């Protein structure tokens, strides 16, 4: 694994304006991603995982209040680009995304072949038949039968549609693919298939992945490292081995404990209470209210602490 940094995110913020106040969906996120590395971003629903993906790809809704921080891709700062430059130079050329509910991410009135060829045509201005040939190659790559190229999305099964969405993200051979809940609506067998496919793509095409999921168990298939998100912040970034065996942050530990195990008699654990509102997050450690290990200092903003190359944002390790 090459240890060159592909993506570096510094203090990324994405706040939304709503009728009830400012939602701090992504609030000061830092992490780095190396080339040909897969990082899994886990967390509860509503902790800002999808917003993080959108913030990286600058897919902003209308009600953005604050969008700041630094995003470096191969050392190039992206926040300084204007929207048109970003659209033409970054989207799908450097970074692609398989959106949440990828099954619905296909245009119902386009044939899937055309759909996969679309990014090629948009970005490289290639002729349609050329783009279709490339699409066909990608279909082989992701295991979609060739003759599906002329079908419409509704004629495909969920797993096939997921593969098509993946083919679409791969067709321009980007350095980084953000997968937002890629397997959330699929059965376990198909999930396993997709993850095997992702692993193969990672080794064959040297792609990096940001895998956003709340499915901790299946994500372990692909992850090199794991980032844990809580209330708009990343509370832990660890290598996969540490995260899946002995996570540092109390929240990570609770999260891991909530995953049902196939063997053993342990009953899945749960976390008391609810995640804090992102409109008015508590000061200090945001997890403090639900943390079994909280102590006096938790009311202060915790520092980010380095532990053997892993990062954890908790007073316990200070």
């Amino acid at each position: 694994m090459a240890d060159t940094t592909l993506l570096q995110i510094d203090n990324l913020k994405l706040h939304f304006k709503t009728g009830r106040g400012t939602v701090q969906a992504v609030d000061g996120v830092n992490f780095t991603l190396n080339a040909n590395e897969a990082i899994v971003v886990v967390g509860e629903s509503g902790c800002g995982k999808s917003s993080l993906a959108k913030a990286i790809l600058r897919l902003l809704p209308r009600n953005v209040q604050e969008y700041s921080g630094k995003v470096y891709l191969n050392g190039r700062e992206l926040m300084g680009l204007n929207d048109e430059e970003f659209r033409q130079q970054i989207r799908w050329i450097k970074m692609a995304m398989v959106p949440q509910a990828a099954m619905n991410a296909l245009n119902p009135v386009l044939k899937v072949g055309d759909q996969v060829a679309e990014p090629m045509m948009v970005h490289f201005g290639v002729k349609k038949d050329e783009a279709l040939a490339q699409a066909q190659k990608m279909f082989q790559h992701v295991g979609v039968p060739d003759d599906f190229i002329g079908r419409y999305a509704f004629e495909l099964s969920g797993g096939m549609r997921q593969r098509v969405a993946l083919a679409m993200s791969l067709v321009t051979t980007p350095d980084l693919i953000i997968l937002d809940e890629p397997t959330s609506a699929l059965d376990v067998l198909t999930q396993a298939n997709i993850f095997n496919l992702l692993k193969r793509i990672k080794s064959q095409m040297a792609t990096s992945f940001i895998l956003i999921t709340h499915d901790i168990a299946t994500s372990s298939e692909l992850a090199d490292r794991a980032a844990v998100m809580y209330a708009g912040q990343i509370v832990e970034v660890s290598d996969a081995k540490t995260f899946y065996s002995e996570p540092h942050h109390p929240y990570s530990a609770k999260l891991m404990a909530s995953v049902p195990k196939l063997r053993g008699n342990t009953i899945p654990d749960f976390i008391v209470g609810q995640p804090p509102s992102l409109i008015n997050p508590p000061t200090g450690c945001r997890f403090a209210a639900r943390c079994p290990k909280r102590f006096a200092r938790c009311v202060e903003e915790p520092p980010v602490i380095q532990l053997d190359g892993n990062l954890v944002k908790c007073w316990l390790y200070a």
Partner: protein
Amino acid sequence: MKTINKTFKQISQYPSAVFGLFIIMLLVILAVYAMATIPYSEAIRLWRGGEDVVYMNPKNVPPAWVNIFRKTRLPESFAVKSSEGEITKTVTPGADNTASIDFEYPFEFDYDVYPQELMLYFTSTYASKNPFVSIYIITPTGEELRVGDFGVSAKQTFRFSQDERFIRRLVREKRDENPMIGIFSIPETEPPVPQKGTYKLFVQGQTFEANSDLNVEFVLHGQSYGLAGTDHARRDLMVALLWGAPIALAFGLLAALATSILSMAIAAIGAWYGGWLDELIQRITEVNLVLPFLAILIMVGTFYTTSIWTILGVTIALSIFTGAVKSYRAVFLQVKESTYIEAAKAYGASNFRIVFLYLIPRMIPLLIPTLVSAVPAYVFLEASLALLGLGDPVLPTWGKVINDAYSNGALYKEQYYWILEPAVLLMITGLGFAMLGFALDRIFNPRLRGI
């Protein structure tokens, strides 16, 4: 292509749609036939040429085929020319460069109604002495009616029923003082009964110079004419009925296509970009919705021009920002939030691409039935405007025919054909498009489909 084939296959499952399509095809064939056989300039000449073009037509008569349904047969009109050999012309040279030129034309009259008028059009060439003619009608019983004797100029028209001396002669011979009744009835019957049989027109001409020549055209204005009848200005209604088809179709299709496509594009652009653009479009729509559409058209027609193309333009302009924009926008706002639109944004599709490749195609199933159903609405609109006196001053259209009929009191004079012919064509057009439109609606809108 596959979609079109599939659509046609589905259409074939609805008999009403097949019938509607059949009617539309007929109309298209009619329109193409009209444009191919009567070129535009010729149609305008026939419709607006005046007396020179229509002198051989009777006035306000129904089509010839009404005889099939009548107990009393209406005489059909005809016009024959000696210059084209339709009238037998015999030239007998005489002494001193004189010549006698005789014209003979026998014609069958087995009708129960008297014709409107008999006319002779003389054309002659001479230097100083004009030719002289004597006109006779020989009735089926062999009786010879002397109509008139006079010298003819280079161009001269002789109307049988307007010749005082002929009328006096008829009265002297105890025939009816109306020349038509006088000529065509059995003598001394009361009320007059038409005499059926073969009549003969006999014109005895005399020229007095070497290069003098004489020709005659014989016109009988009957009580029926052609396939469609004639109007108050002796015009053949067939011209207007035939040329009304391409005009109506062009007006209806252009207006329907332009308004639906523009409404949709504008709604899509508004919904996609949002912000002030959307607000602007919505406010324009709201203002436009309260504008009195017909009143504006009448104003344009009265103060500016009644040219059909200007009216078409104003119609389209006023019909873009209507409720359609609102309802399309409502659907677009929904579609806009779909995952696949966000996906398109993510892969870097431009706004233009998203609007025209992602938003609008979603709406086409909704667009097509609306479009087809909108065509007759605009055809009727054109006819209504014509009826209100805002028809195109040049073009013969169905609406103009109805307007003429209306302003000449056709219905009070029992000239039903005059109103019914264009009305039936309008109704058939409406029916055809409506039937197809309803079926397309059912095909493209699965919620309306029966199980």
